[in-house]
């Protein structure tokens, strides 16, 4: 139960942190005229955050259990 709540909390802060990382004050930290592997730093940064968000969500989604009552099968015959 505690485990599950922790996962839910993580799932809650993830988009918030994601948003914070993608908007001005923090994003500007990486907005420099620097190239890494021949690609601008801000591009690497944005795609990095993006990839991390996807990865963490995939991890959390699989770990988070199902909270629904058993599916009623009557609805499936339409």
């Amino acid at each position, binding site marked *: 139960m505690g485990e599950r709540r922790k996962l*839910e909390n993580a*799932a*809650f802060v*993830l*988009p*918030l942190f*994601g*948003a914070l990382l*993608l*908007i*001005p004050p923090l*994003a*500007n930290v990486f*907005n*420099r*005229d620097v*190239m890494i*592997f*021949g*690609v*601008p730093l*801000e*591009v690497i940064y*944005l*795609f990095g955050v*993006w*990839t991390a*968000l*996807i*990865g*963490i*969500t*995939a991890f959390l*989604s*699989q770990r*988070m259990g*199902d*909270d*629904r*009552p058993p*599916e009623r099968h*009557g*609805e*499936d*015959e*339409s």
Partner: protein
Amino acid sequence: MLSANFVIFIAFGYVCLLFVLAYFGDKRARDGNAGFLRSPLVYTLSISVYCTSWTFYGAVGSAARNGLEFLTIYMGPTLVFVGWWFILRKLVRIGRTQRITSVADLLSSRFGKSGRLAVLVTLIAVIGTTPYIALQLKAITSSIRVISAADVAGGLSSFDDVTLALGVAAGMALFTILFGTRNVDAKEQHHGVVAAIAFEAVIKMLALLAVGIFVVFGVGGGFEAIYQRAVESGISIHSEDTFGPRWVATLVLSAAAVLCLPRQFQITVVENSNEDHLRTAGWAFPAYLLLMSVFTMPIALYGLTTLPNGSNPDMFVLTLPLATGNTWLALFAFIGGFSSATSMIIVATIALSIMVSNHIVMPIALSSSETLGTGDGRGVTQLLLNSRRISIAFVLFLGFLYFWLTGNSDALAAIGLISFAGVAQFLPAMIAALYWRDATVKGAIAATLMGFSIWAWTMFLPSFGSTSPWISDLMQHGPWGIALLRPEALFGLEGMDPLVHSVFWSLFLNSATLILVSIFTSQSTLERVQATLFVDVFRRHSADQSNFIRGSATVNDLFFVAQRILGGERTYALFEGFARERGVSRGNVEPSPELIGQLERELAGSIGAASAHVMLSKVVSGNEVSLEEVMQIADETQQVIEYSQRLEQTSEELRNTAAQLQEANEQMRKLDQQKDDFLSQVSHEVRTPMTSIRSFAEILLEHRDLSGDQRKRFTSTIHQESLRLTRLLDEILDLSALERGEREWVNTPIDPNAVIARAIEVCEPLLQQRNMQVDIGPAIGGVLVAADPDRLAQVFINLLSNAIKYNDAEAPQVKIYSAVTGHDFIVDIEDNGPGIEVSDQRRIFEKFSRGRRRGDRDEAGSGLGLAISYQIISRMGGRLDLVSGRGRGACFRVSLPLVPAEKKKRRPRSKKDQQGAAE
């Protein structure tokens, strides 16, 4: 080289392929063999209808013009999907339990099944989607023109863009009508269409990746080389103000759009067949978006560096392969762009047509035609289907009109953002619908209307500025010359980016209106019920909550109504299932509120909550009071809860009372015991002098030959003993009178030092007998205490005589100190006698308790003196304590409250006051 005819033929063939896919998808779903079609993968792919030709062509154009900004369009949805557990899951759950058919239905249902709100949302959705559809038409026509430009002799050059767009719009309308409105489905799910959309998602991704890989690794020489070349040719690849207000605004807009766009709502919520699919979509859809944007920037940069100046960057995806002679790749890219446009058009028009038919046509039909509910069975279904077909054609026509009116000037991305900002006006109401219980329908309507007006004024209208001189004049000088109302500088807010300006004003005023109006208006009963159903959707497991209509309809009436919307087979199954659940035969089903409630939900799945409610209310010639009943039932439940809480409280009180009773009983027994002890002690005390009196009296009676001396001695003993006896009885009477509060005396302000002096005087003979001195500390002058002088003297005499009588020290001594602390006057009477045993200290003030004394019998007191003193001092509002003195002897302390000097002349305290003080 590709001929125009060939390209059009390919496009037509592609649409036919879609048709076949959709057809078989539908067929498999109907056969109950949906399997793969309902997998999380297909669901995720279909959500990517988000990526339209704006993504396919426009993103590159946007990257070429505005740098990295295009990424926000995909990062906003990424954030929403990453947080799927909170918003999307709730939306989908509500959509499934309440049979929501569209975003208009969601808001209408939540705000008390309001028809007006549904109409408003539908209209805004139609107007907001129009630019978006125009964008697709523009993309398709431009792409056809680009790819067949080489073909000079082709038949296309004789058409202009407008004709081409009209043709495309007509074609798309035909396809969508054929597929989107084949039947009025109970749950408004279109498995065939979803299958086709998923297929298109794969095609457009493959096409874009193919072009991207070709550009970057085929001709560009890798990411580094492309950036290198861009820097060399003077293109700025770095901008200081990338992350500015516009960045945030587009991020917010795209996050709002992925929730509010009618087509996204249709695919994500309405077409969702299993809530669990979100688990996959939560990360897979952002991953899809990521893949779609990886190559955007390099393609734009490569296009800018290699293609001649003035090339349209929106078409780089096509022109780059063409320029390098890769015709087939260009054709593939064209199909990718075509598929991204068609999928958007199909889903958007289906979603809008459902909204128009459910929320505008149905209510009008229901209110204008009395026979609709009772006519022949086909009427309603036919009406729904026809209205949907017409609205599809109408929406596409509107899109075409916008395309025609705005001309060719706007970039794709700019048009798309107008659309996003339009539908984003639903966001405040939608968030309130999910999380704010007290939002009212008036608030929602006012807010949406406000946001929409601001959007229309500050964004939609200016988009016509380039083609209409009247509008461009308005933008320059404001309406009637009022500069404060200029569309792009509202209320004098100048110098902002027009997009940021519009998004800020519209969303800010929208939310503010929602909150303020909701606070100042109240909810109807139905609203309150619906609000609870929505906000608490995760707390309830039963959906049988909304049976609000009750009345006198027969089962047959209900059956016919249901049949008209749901079709015979499904209606039959529904009634059969209901009868089975209740354990009765089909003929004996009662038109109970449960049945009507279930019917209403089923109907709502087809025609929307508001229309279903109106329709059933019409058929069931019902007493509308049942709403109140619902609340009453809720109230009764509440009452039962309260009642049981009260019961619990009462039993708790009972327990407390019982405990108190037990305590009281215990005390009574103790008192009883004390009384017995007291009696036996009194008897004992009385018996001793009685015995000596009796025996001396007997001697006097029997021995007549006693000498006069003896006789005199015996008589005096008898006299002494009887005095002692009288004294004892007096004290007992005195004490019990004190205890019962019968002794009345008046406390007057007196000088305690005088009383102490008097007490010493009284004890003088005793002192001389013992040869003792009283050591009196410095007297404190000018103090007054409220007391009765005689009674107080009695106390001091008692304490002094005890100190004298029981002092067995070699040099017996008594000390009297007085002091003032705070509001009390304190007198300590200390001796250097044997002191009081620790074990006795506790009960020293009890009756008949004598410390273990060593004095001779004559001097033994009654054991009542301290008890009486204690009572007296208490009655004066003071305290009598045994304190630890300086030496080994006992030290008694009398504390009495001081009478403030200015109140000296005050009336003596009444008896009541003293008792209060004594407690």
